[in-house]
């Protein structure tokens, strides 16, 4: 039966790894990045990123000193870049969980090439997102009021407020994503430990690897843990951004209150997350030569997901528009037709940036030529990142700047501090990301090995028993257990 799982060429199936990839070459390619000295480019990028991080620190320090008045937020736009950035970052964080949990459950094995990368991004994006609720409260030293902690004044958060649901949703998400990421890392950290030349390196990776020995029993437990974490994370993919959408949708403001918001936000989040993974993956792949692992096939599949999610987002935009018209609700109609879409609207430029970046630009991926062109996908992925930022900006600011009280209508402009803070979080993100690239295997070594043809328990049809795989080879640590069916029964 070994042949049935091999790619069938006549229907266009191709292997998940490049020709000539072996267990050894995967270990080598990935581990080397963390073992060799960082290339000069890494240092340049790192210095730039950490400079931006410094700018963020200063911007936030200034904010704490002066108060939130240093931002452009003012009546009637009380929420602006702070929440826009928060939602944008949280959204970017969704690709990781989708890839590691949902695609895992759907047996999309191609995910193995990109899941580590995406999961790391998830965690860093959530960290960046969490900056904003922390600093937007005005008196940052009272930020702990966001949590339902007992305090001497017996002031409890309003449990009916979606903002407190946000705290629960995002903190759960951060915890589970981190746990998931770390569990997946254990076998690879053990690989690095075993390859380590210096005692310090061996000690550190050894401690992180939690004494992993790669025994069959360890693999069984590992795979079970992975499956359970995937099952637990899957609802989180939906819940986190649904709860974020509740921040808006539970209100009465036209453009905020609409029932499609929860799934629409989830689709948008996955969309932006994939775009960010794509942008970074293209650069990293070129610099570190992991092309044999992250192949064109993977990039093409990611582009297909972007086309799908981008179209889902387009569907949601369309439904909002259609229902505004269909409902006969004058407030909805005015918001969509005049405030957003009409070129007379002060923020219509933002609306049309959003539409062209999010809905139109991914449509190029209908064509295989475009899906497999690196420059095209790079540009489109950046356009999507921009478009998804504008989506949140459009939702938040256009709805607020002309609310029910025309005497208070105004225009919103960000201040320099707004801009510095936002750029600063990009610095934070890239700093963490570059450290990750430098010290942690950026591809899930053991999982990619699992999709090599040799890893199929029936690959060697003459082998008397599957166990022979377990005992026989000398690279126990880096190889995934062949527990496929056996472990389950």
């Amino acid at each position, binding site marked *: 039966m070994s042949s049935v799982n091999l790619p069938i060429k006549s229907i266009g199936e191709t292997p998940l790894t490049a020709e000539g990839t072996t267990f050894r070459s995967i270990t080598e390619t990935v581990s080397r990045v963390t073992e060799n000295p960082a290339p000069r480019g890494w240092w340049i990028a790192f210095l730039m990123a950490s400079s931006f991080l410094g700018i963020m620190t200063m911007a936030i320090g200034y904010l704490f000193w002066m108060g939130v008045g240093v931002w452009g937020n003012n009546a009637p736009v009380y929420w602006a870049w702070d929440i826009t950035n928060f939602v944008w970052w949280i959204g970017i964080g969704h690709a990781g969980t989708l890839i590691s949990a949902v695609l895992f459950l759907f047996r999309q094995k191609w995910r193995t090439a990109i899941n580590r990368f995406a999961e790391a991004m998830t965690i860093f994006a959530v960290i960046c997102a969490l900056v904003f609720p922390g600093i937007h409260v005005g008196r940052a030293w009272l930020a702990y009021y966001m949590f339902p902690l007992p305090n001497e004044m017996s002031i409890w958060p309003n449990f009916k407020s979606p903002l407190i649901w946000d705290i629960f949703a995002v903190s759960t998400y951060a915890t589970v994503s981190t746990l998931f990421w770390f569990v997946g890392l254990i076998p690879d950290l053990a690989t690095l430990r075993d390859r380590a030349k210096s005692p310090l390196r061996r000690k550190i990776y050894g401690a992180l690897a939690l004494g992993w020995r790669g025994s069959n029993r360890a693999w069984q437990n590992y795979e079970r843990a992975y499956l359970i974490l995937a099952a637990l994370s899957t609802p989180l993919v939906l819940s986190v951004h649904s709860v974020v959408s509740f921040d808006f949708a*539970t209100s009465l403001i036209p453009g905020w209150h609409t*029932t*499609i918001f929860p799934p629409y936000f989830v689709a948008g989040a996955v969309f932006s997350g994939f775009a960010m993974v794509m942008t970074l993956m293209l650069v990293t792949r070129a610099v570190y030569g992991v092309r044999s692992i992250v192949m064109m096939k993977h990039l093409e599949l990611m582009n297909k997901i972007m086309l799908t999610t981008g179209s889902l987002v387009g569907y949601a935009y369309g439904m909002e528009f259609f229902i505004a018209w269909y409902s006969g609700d004058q407030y909805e109609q005015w918001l969509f037709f005049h405030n957003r879409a009409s070129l007379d609207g002060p923020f219509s430029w933002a609306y049309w940036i959003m539409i062209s970046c999010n809905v139109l630009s991914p449509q190029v991926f209908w064509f295989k030529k475009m899906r497999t062109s690196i420059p095209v996908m790079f540009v489109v992925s950046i356009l999507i990142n921009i478009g998804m930022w504008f989506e949140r900006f459009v939702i938040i600011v256009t709805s607020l700047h002309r609310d029910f009280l025309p005497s208070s209508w105004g225009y919103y402009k960000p201040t320099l501090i707004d801009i510095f803070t936002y750029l600063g979080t990009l610095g934070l993100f890239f700093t963490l990301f570059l450290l990750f690239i430098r010290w942690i295997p950026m591809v899930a070594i053991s999982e990619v090995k699992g999709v090599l043809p040799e890893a199929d328990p029936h690959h060697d049809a003459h082998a008397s028993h599957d166990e022979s795989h377990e005992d026989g080879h000398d690279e126990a640590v880096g190889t995934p257990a062949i527990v496929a069916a056996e472990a389950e029964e």
Partner: protein
Amino acid sequence: MSDKSNDKDKSGSVATKGSTSEFALPASWANVWKICAAVGLVGIGITAAQMFGSDGARAGYSYLFGYNVFLTIALGMLFFVLIQHLTSAGWSVTVRRTAEFFAMGLPVFALLFLPILMKADAIYPWTQSPHEGKGHEEKASHEEKEGALGLPFVNEAHAQPAAPAAAAPAGAASAKEHDDGTGKGQGNGKGAGRGDGSGANVEGRKAHEAGAEKHEAHDDGTGGGNGDGHGKGKGNGSGAPHEGGAHAGGLSHHGDALEHEHAEIMEAKQKGWLNKNFWYVRAAGYFAIWSVLAWFFFGNSTKQDKSKDPKLTTTSQKWAPLGTFAFGISLTFAAIDWLMSLDPMWFSTIYGVYIFATSVVSSLALIIVVTMMLRKDGPLSKVFTKEHYHDLGKLLFGFNVFWAYIGFSQMMLIWYAALPAETPFYHKRWETPSSLTVGNHSGDFWTNVSVALVVGHFVIGFLFLISRNTKRRLPVLQVGALWMLLMHVLDMYWFVLPNFEPNTKAAGFSFALTDVTAPLGVGGIYFAVVFYMMTKHALIPTGDPRLARSIAFLNA
């Protein structure tokens, strides 16, 4: 463990052959389609007699309910086929054919749509002129003044106290603003009437703000050149014209102004979307899309049985994305046209996704039930393995959660905002009076149905299907799938029937014979077509290049 290795051994021998005749419909099933057809004809006959008899409207609603129970299933089947091609799935090849058969029943729904077409006037309120219309005048008096405010879905604080105070001045002021702003094309008398209505409405939306200011907002921003916005967008549409009282909650004192307001909005909607001619055209479009898609994928797959040409697989995969697009859009608008428009003043952007979710859940349940029955005799037990059922069970479980997620999203957001334009949907499904005594006192019927859906469809479905053991023990899974089908029937009943409002309010809602005959009729005809097709083609795609992979597939 031992079970599995048996399965594997058997499948090994089957996979290599894959001849068409081997997987023909078992002889014992050859006449099933005739039985289905007989049941269907009798069911349709009884229902039609009622529909075109004395109580046509009630039977019409039954028919719409029965129709949608099976239409959603058929659409879910089409989605199953599409998504397998879209993702180039290999595991599902053997069960895909079952879905293809059931999707191939879609063209017959165009024929089954005729009774709805003929009785559209009795079923859809928007077919009537909002100003006259005999049923509607009567329905307008349908009151629930006290009941409305005891609801979880109507926020008293917003709806009631401010109503008398704000309405009059707001109305007057806004009427003036309207005339200033738009001027042309609208008579003064009309403007005043509209102003009144919107004034009342405005405070319904945001009690603490003066309605007049909002009209300023409207006029300022649009600068008078906005005939469109004014024409279609008066007020925020609190409820259908035929039940102002129930919809607007505390606003029922201002019934006249509201009714007028609603009539104005209805007129605009009838001009734009909800008019019969356009409705016919759209329906024709949906049936065309679905029939073409079903036929295309079924045709490719059955052609492959004979030719074994792998190109047919790639062709299907190539068109699946476009097909999915067309499918998603047509399903959404069909849901709006045929179900959401039962209450023409109500709207929800998530509605299409909601109907999509119920389609997927029910079709997965039916695939499980039907393949298990087919499997009882014949060689199919070797090709529909425990592994396939495990996966189908996972999908059923997952989409049931998705259904609950979508349902909850809509409910929670409408409850939270408590806008009079949106709450009627849940209001009807919670407090519509009924003659049925189910529970402590009469009037609880729809409350109980709603609770039954939450508990039965979601909670029981969730707990039952979450276990791996349930999904791998086929008789147990079959019970679960049957349960989900039953819940789907209830779900569609809950979607359709609360919109039926009997003219004699004392009687309230009650069951009708047609509630049973209609689904039997529609289902019978649909199944007859499907099972007839099964006599003509192999029950699995014997020519698919991934057939062996699908048969040997193991859940890792």
